């Protein structure tokens, strides 16, 4: 233990764990950011992630497609759940919070049932080959941050690129402007000829795909298996991250990192043998998010029509 510290491997492990934990959070919260900027809130994101995780399992094992097909199926599964959300809220005008809650319940029950049906009543543990790492020469040999940032699965790099891409999309494209206009004043946007419903639908589906892939990442490049309820609140965390990041892509990326770093503190505490109760360290990220949300106070302004039914 002590020579680990001497070698600086604790810092390396901490950095690596942070990046690993941040990846699905960035994917899921960036998707949620998109629909929230369009005035929607999908608290069924937890269910979207869980469905994506299960989709990854089916794609990678049942259909024997390995991690690439696994990720594709996870995105599709997330999209399917998001379509359900869109049908209820955009199509039938149901309340978004209630629909989202029902969707999470559905995904919890649905994935659990399908898992036990497809893979046996006891849910014998499955091992999936986790996605290979894409090592960038030279940079990956940097001390501390080398492995964390430059020897990761491809999807991690894509997740990180998603942050500036989303920022560019929202700031500099027509569609991005239309999306923001819808979130601030849908009636005005509609009057100006913006296809409100279509843009909201597309945003919901894209967010669903991103949330699904986030779930796929949990299975394919982290756990290497599927466990019932394995999303473990990440969907809710991602929604908190959007608020914490003040509905801005760069802020959201930063908030995801902050949360991931706090979560990864447990490895540091373990390595250093700190006498802090393990459960309190696990609760820390949630407490910190609460404190940060309170600290933001009224200064973070949500999109004007967030969660309202038109």
């Amino acid at each position, binding site marked *: 233990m002590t020579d680990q510290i001497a070698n600086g491997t604790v810092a390396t492990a901490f950095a690596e764990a942070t990046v690993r934990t941040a990846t699905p959070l960035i994917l899921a919260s960036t998707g949620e950011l998109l629909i929230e900027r369009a005035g929607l809130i999908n608290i069924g994101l937890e269910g979207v992630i869980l469905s994506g995780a299960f989709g990854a399992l089916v794609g990678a094992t049942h259909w024997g497609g390995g991690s690439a097909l696994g990720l594709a199926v996870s995105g599709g599964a997330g999209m399917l759940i998001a379509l*359900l959300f869109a049908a209820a809220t955009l199509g039938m005008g149901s309340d978004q919070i209630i629909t989202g809650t*029902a969707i999470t319940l559905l995904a919890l029950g649905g994935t*659990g049932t399908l898992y036990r049906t497809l893979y046996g009543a006891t849910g014998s543990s499955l091992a999936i080959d986790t996605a290979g790492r894409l090592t960038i020469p030279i940079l990956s040999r940097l001390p501390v941050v080398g492995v964390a940032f430059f020897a990761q699965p491809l999807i991690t790099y894509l997740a990180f690129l998603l942050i500036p891409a989303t920022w560019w999309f929202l700031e500099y494209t027509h569609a991005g402007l239309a999306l923001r206009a819808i979130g601030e004043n849908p009636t005005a946007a509609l009057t100006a000829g913006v296809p409100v419903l279509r843009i909201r639908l597309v945003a919901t589906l894209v967010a669903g795909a991103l949330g699904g892939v986030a779930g796929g990442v949990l299975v394919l490049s982290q756990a290497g298996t599927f466990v019932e309820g394995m999303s473990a609140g990440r969907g*809710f965390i991602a929604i908190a991250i959007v608020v914490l990041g003040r509905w801005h892509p760069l802020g959201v990326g930063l908030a995801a990192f902050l949360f991931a770093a706090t979560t990864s503190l447990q490895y540091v505490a373990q390595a250093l043998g700190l006498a802090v109760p393990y459960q309190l360290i696990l609760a820390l990220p*949630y407490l910190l998010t609460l404190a940060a*949300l309170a600290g933001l106070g009224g200064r973070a302004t949500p999109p004007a029509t967030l969660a309202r039914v038109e």
Partner: protein
Amino acid sequence: MRWLAPIPAPLRRAAYVVAILSIGVPLLLRVLGFEALPAAAALLRGSLGSGYAITSATLVRATPLILTGLSVAIAFRAGVFNIGAEGQLLTGAAAAVAVSLLPGLSHSHWNPVIALAVGASAGGLWAGIAAFLRVRFHVLEVISTILLNFVALYLVGYVVRGPLQEPLHIYPQSSTIEAAARLPRILPGSRLHAGFLVAIVVAMAAWWTVRFTAAGFRLRASGANPEAARIAGEIDVARAGASAFVVSGAIAGLAGAIEVTGVTFALYENISPGYGYTGIAVALLARLDAAGVVASGLLFGALEAGASAMQRDAGVPSVVVSMIEAVIILGLIVAWPLQGSAGRPLPAAEPTHSGQQ
């Protein structure tokens, strides 16, 4: 669905639930590759098949669901999206066990009463954190209550390995509470405990309060149309919402206290199989009406009680029941979108109307 209009709404909903259960569920089971008939038979046997199944399985299981359903219904009625019944239930359970294990109290016959009161207070306090954050800092309660659920779960995980761990320090659970500290059984030969009666009394009290008292009117007005309540009714909407929030938490805390003093007799991590989340479904099915919550709580209690029999006798995984519950709720909200009593959609989640003007 206009041709259905002459039929009273609760009847329409009951018919819908019966239709889902008798057509949708067998279909779902077929799709999943199970024999529908033996599964349904096992489900019925386990929930309603005998006096013992009704009292010891269904009613015992329905008790926490009725209470968490009431908790959610009261909050949602006031326009407060309390998704935190799970965490409030857990803190209530932990506090009730802590009090029941106190040396001076553990043999007292007042113990169950004190334990329930302390559990309810703890739940109310836990919800109070989110209520405070909402009123003072405008933190969305949907998010804060969910975050607090996880904190509560880790808190229980900590106390059952720390301060409340059984004296041998082997298992992550508390000692078993003394016989005197347990809720009395109310039917000989069954596991039905006094907590069920408590749940029914709380439901009646909630129904009466919401419908016939001034506080109940303020609650409904704040939830249905906060602007109108503030301007025309001169109602302190923030205060009405916060009170409903704390009461909602107290009822969920009571559910936790009843569960540990009536069923488990000890505290451990998996004490709740998601009662707080199922409570949301229970409340929604009842259209946030306290009397309806008793009915939907009994229905979900029967479903969950029958689920274990279905898994045991027909090999159908019991989690299929949460899928059934979700299908019922999703179908319901699509068929009859939930509206506030003023005919407009339920208020948005963000507490912009919490009195900062």
